[in-house]
């Protein structure tokens, strides 16, 4: 099998398109351009097109021929799941992708796996982190209370521009100027950029973040702006937030009483 009769970046892109099953005709011109630019052989282009056409023709039918063997593989994984929970999940996903059994059967496998205690999962540190993330995700972010204006500079490239205080959460808006068009590095699973504290010792947990980059067409630099959300909101007694980014520290007045 050769699936790579193309430069790596092209193979990766085609591979991902293939999984998304766009109409095969959408890639005909892309393949033609690659052949025309001597970046892919006509045979390899034909092989890619054939793969897309086969994916196009996939109507989601169940393929029962593999059902018995698939069931055997999954049952074995489930029987070992107390020690290898994540592996069992991955095996079920791989089998489900084949369409060898009806979707309700796959759902039943997932339900059985889900009934096993999370503590039995394979990677304990990951599991703790996943539980923490689940708890954070379940936290309620309510009404907007107030907005505090910055900016607070945290080194040469980063500044927190404002803080939005919600019921149960605080969101830091930030702006980052990079000379190499990179996103600023993140800290942990939560994907946030800052450590946040207050003088009361409140534990602020990163709940998630988002960012977008404004690419300039001249030069290699870019501006990135984003928003990190932390749980909880500053408690009433906290007068300021202490924000750290890459060993740079700054303070934002909490604005109580405004």
């Amino acid at each position, binding site marked *: *099998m050769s*699936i*790579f009769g193309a*430069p790596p*970046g*092209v*193979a*990766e*892109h085609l*591979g*991902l398109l*293939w*999984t998304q099953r766009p109409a095969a005709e959408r890639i005909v*011109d*892309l393949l033609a*351009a*690659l052949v*025309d*630019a001597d*970046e892919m052989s006509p045979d390899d282009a034909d092989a890619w097109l054939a793969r897309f056409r*086969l*994916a196009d023709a*996939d109507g989601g039918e169940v*393929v029962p*021929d593999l059902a018995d063997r*698939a069931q055997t*593989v999954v049952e074995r994984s489930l029987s070992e799941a107390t020690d290898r929970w994540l592996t069992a999940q*991955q095996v079920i*996903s*791989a*089998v489900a*992708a*084949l*369409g060898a059994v009806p979707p309700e059967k796959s759902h039943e496998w997932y339900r059985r796996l889900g009934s096993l205690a999370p503590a039995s999962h394979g990677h304990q540190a990951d599991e703790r982190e996943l539980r923490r993330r689940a708890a954070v995700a379940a936290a309620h972010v309510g009404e*907007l209370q*107030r*907005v505090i*204006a910055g900016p607070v500079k945290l080194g040469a490239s980063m500044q927190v*521009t*404002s803080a939005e205080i919600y019921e149960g959460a605080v*969101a830091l*808006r930030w*702006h980052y100027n990079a000379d190499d068009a*990179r*996103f600023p*590095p*993140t800290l*942990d699973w939560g*994907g*946030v950029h800052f450590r946040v504290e207050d003088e009361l010792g409140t534990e602020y947990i990163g709940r998630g*973040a*988002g*960012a*977008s980059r*404004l690419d*300039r*067409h001249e030069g290699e630099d870019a*501006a990135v702006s*984003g928003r*990190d959300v932390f749980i909880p909101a500053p408690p009433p007694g906290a007068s300021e937030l202490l924000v750290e980014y890459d060993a740079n520290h700054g303070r934002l007045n909490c604005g109580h009483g405004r």
Partner: protein
Amino acid sequence: MAAADRLRLARSRAERYLAALALHPRRDPEHLPPGVDRDAMEAQRGAALHAALTTYAELELVGEQDAAVWREAAEGRSGRPAQPGRSSPQALAMLERRWAELETAGDPEDEAAARQRVWNGLFAVTLAGALSRDDARSWSWRIDEQRAGADPTAHRLLKVRRETRLDDLRRVIAGPARGASGFTVLSAEIFADAIALHWRRRVGLREPFDPSVVSLDDDVGTDYLVLGAGGSGGDEDQTGTVVFSPAPPPDAKRVRVVATAGDEFELTIDPGGIR
């Protein structure tokens, strides 16, 4: 469907599942959007690929040799395509041929299709790492300018997009100011060359929302262009940003923000406020 066709379909599904795991671009951590931990993601993806290959081998959908190819593909993912110092002559020639088709296109429909073919060609050879950074950029501009045609506003927007830097934040004006429709202006960041408005919108309002419809004007007649607009959110609310160029000029005292459903806000520059 014959048994052989069913098996072919199952193999296609297996290959697509493996492709999603093995061919997902590896990116430098610095280029990852926030919220993505590359090491954890890579470890999980590697384990999932191993489990899938083992499963498919047992189901006789993937042979040993194929499994080695998939593993090699996963190891060799390259991330962003490298951009060479010099472009491939064949890549440039392909683009010129497509450009010639664009120049001779007859009606607007043909022209749009021909322009799309130039874009496709540019995308293909950029993915292949066959174009230098300079050539990729100049081809992108060439297509943008052709599309702008004789429209001066479109040309101005292209120029402003190329030149706006957002690297000199002058001040932040905090809201919130809530409109009757549920649209809230959270804050405004005034840069030397642009103004960014952060907004929030309660989602109960299920109708689609295009943040680029938000507009600005001021008391000195500045013509603001939307440089970029976007948002994200879940079941409860959405938040996002609209960036305009230029910044309010020094003699502007008030900036009016016109949002949706008749909501209007007034931004006072000095002292700063939003209402």
